[in-house]
């Protein structure tokens, strides 16, 4: 057992280069988005081109006037134009014979709401890009409003608690599954408590992006938006996996696989008790959230079983 553990590559062995980001950046203490950016950059390598939008990541990725906080080429665009801008870049590089890895990096609001059409279009065209969604379940940069990534019951500034309101009334969009249904070469979920798992998926995504579209959906808790302590964000990630609230899986050429099996999943209340925006859920509401988590997981399991050993032919 000990030997087996030794053979498994440690996360730092996936690093291609030094951290390309400046040491002090304008993000909150405990921000998982910052970790995510630095991690993606170190695993995917220096030569990637980031495409991003106005968002929490913008102050760091965009730069101001001639100042920058990282050493990557970067393309900023509107929230409606991420996957399409990445398409323009990658298509020109293909035409000109330039080797490049174009990486879109957006929040859930852009990917799942206002930029969804262009993301879906690029996936359908099987554009050679990597699209990474850092899902903090809402519009955190503009002041914690609900997005279609916000879960049932969550209190946000546009689904506040009140005499007549108990938070968001509908479930979140099951975005990674939606993307997997686009029949692209690679789709995965990842989070920052499981970095080896995440690193492997980034490496696979980079390889897949030479053939077509790769999508990674990253669970990224937001300290002020979720009302969690600054030192709890990684713990929240871990509990999301352990409760099956955010199962870690991948879909490679039509074959689904759960990459982190949870032997005895904890009840979802183990997660919600840590998270301020969900702490008000009563038993009935928790049961509803639990039922949704269970149902999504059963569907995922069924897909894993149904697709096992039957990869889709090359598209």
């Amino acid at each position, binding site marked *: 057992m000990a030997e087996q553990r030794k053979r498994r590559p440690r996360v730092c062995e996936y690093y291609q280069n030094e951290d390309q980001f400046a040491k002090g950046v304008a993000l909150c203490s405990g921000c998982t988005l910052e970790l995510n950016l630095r991690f993606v950059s170190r695993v995917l390598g220096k030569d990637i081109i980031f495409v991003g939008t106005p968002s929490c990541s913008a102050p760091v990725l965009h730069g101001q006037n001639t100042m920058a906080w990282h050493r990557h080429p970067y393309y900023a665009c509107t929230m409606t134009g991420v996957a399409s801008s990445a398409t323009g870049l990658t298509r020109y590089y293909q035409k000109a014979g330039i080797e490049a890895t174009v990486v879109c990096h957006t929040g859930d609001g852009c990917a799942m709401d206002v930029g969804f059409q262009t993301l879906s279009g690029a996936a359908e*065209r099987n554009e050679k890009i990597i699209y990474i969604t850092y899902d903090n379940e809402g519009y955190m940069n503009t002041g914690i409003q609900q997005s279609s990534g916000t879960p049932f019951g969550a209190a946000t500034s546009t689904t506040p608690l009140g005499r007549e309101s108990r938070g968001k009334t509908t479930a979140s969009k099951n975005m990674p599954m939606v993307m997997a249904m686009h029949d692209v070469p690679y789709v995965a979920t990842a989070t920052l408590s499981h970095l080896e798992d995440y690193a492997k998926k980034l490496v696979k995504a980079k390889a897949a992006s030479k053939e077509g579209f790769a999508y990674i959906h990253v669970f990224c808790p937001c300290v002020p938006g979720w009302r969690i302590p600054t030192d709890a964000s990684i713990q929240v990630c871990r509990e999301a996996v352990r409760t099956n609230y955010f199962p870690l899986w991948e879909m490679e050429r039509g074959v689904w696989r759960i990459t982190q099996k949870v032997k005895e999943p904890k009840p979802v209340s183990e997660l919600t008790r840590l998270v301020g925006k969900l702490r008000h859920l009563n038993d009935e509401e928790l049961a509803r959230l639990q039922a949704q988590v269970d149902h999504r997981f059963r569907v995922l399991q069924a897909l894993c079983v149904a697709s096992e050993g039957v990869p889709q032919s090359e598209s």
Partner: protein
Amino acid sequence: MAAVLDRQRKVITGNGAAAYAAMLCRPDVIAAYPITPQSEVVEQLAKFHADGLLDCEYVTVEGENSAQNVVCAATMAGGRAFTATSSYGLVYMYDAMFNTAGYRAPVVMVNVNREPPGIHAVCSGQQDMISVRDTGWVQLVVENCQEILDTVIMAFRLAEDFDIQLPVIVNYDGYYLSFLAESVDIPAIAEVDRYLEVLKRQPPRPQLLPGQPIGCGSHGIGMGYVELRKKHMAAMERVKTKLEEIEGEFAEIFGRSYGGQIEEYRTEDADIVLVTSGSAVGTARAVVDAKREEGVKVGLVKLRLFRPFPKERLSAALRGRKAVGVLDRSICFGWDCGPLYMEVRALTPEMGILPLLSFIDGLANMDITKEHIAGMIDEIKAAAEGRPYQEVTWLP
């Protein structure tokens, strides 16, 4: 196959002319979404691509907003890019058009004029191009199929010129020109190569490339923003002379030219002048000839460059006239007149106070007939003679 790329004279539609021109300029990336009355442009380009005549990345996007973002990014990466749209499509890419202009991305776009949303009209009208006038794009308006082809080629020279680096729209009237078949002189691709070759000899544009840490679209904070706006404005002003310069070179190779920013027709001794743009110019030319036969000293000014507005040449052309009329194929909310009329009126300090008449005609495929234009000239003449006149007239 090769025969298609030799010089030839063919009867083609306005849309066909736009597609031929784009193909001859060898774009690296084309992204466009179909919309009436532009669809033929994208279909024709897809066919050129399918037949191996057009070596480019042809992106079948899922909407116009994406089309604009694709071509903007492709030019920022270093490529040449083309798109085409109309009406609903133009306003659907509105946010992205600000990006393209702000990034100084030299995209060339064809806009086939059609009434925009509101009152659903699958009809010609210039309201679409008017609605994007403050996005920072250069805008040209053309009159016939040959001019469509020639102007799209010139638009690449203009957009990618080192002193300009701005996106350019070539506008032409939907239906009246998009589906009008005319005899068009299609240049050989080698001639177009020769015309565009000068672009390769200029200092290189910045390119977004892997391994080179360039940020595109960083936050413009305070003076950083102001500086870029000021430079954008200065580049826009340079378009006026640059257009005439590159049109001169175009004339040397292809033997055709259109007067640059504006074309004056029989204005030398004219007492009164009608200003208009687009397909209505051809009709107006015939009416001006007829009125001249009757002894009316009338001239015509065709507005080719809409953004930047050719205020110097236009005010010089209108100064000292006894009355001027402006024919618009669109309206200007809040000013109760036509938009081109409003802009001509803003030239008053330069051209002096004179009777000005606004004519709104041709909305939603209502024909701008010879009779209409003859009536307009009669009204302008009456105003010139000191008779009372109505400032704004809707036709028919």
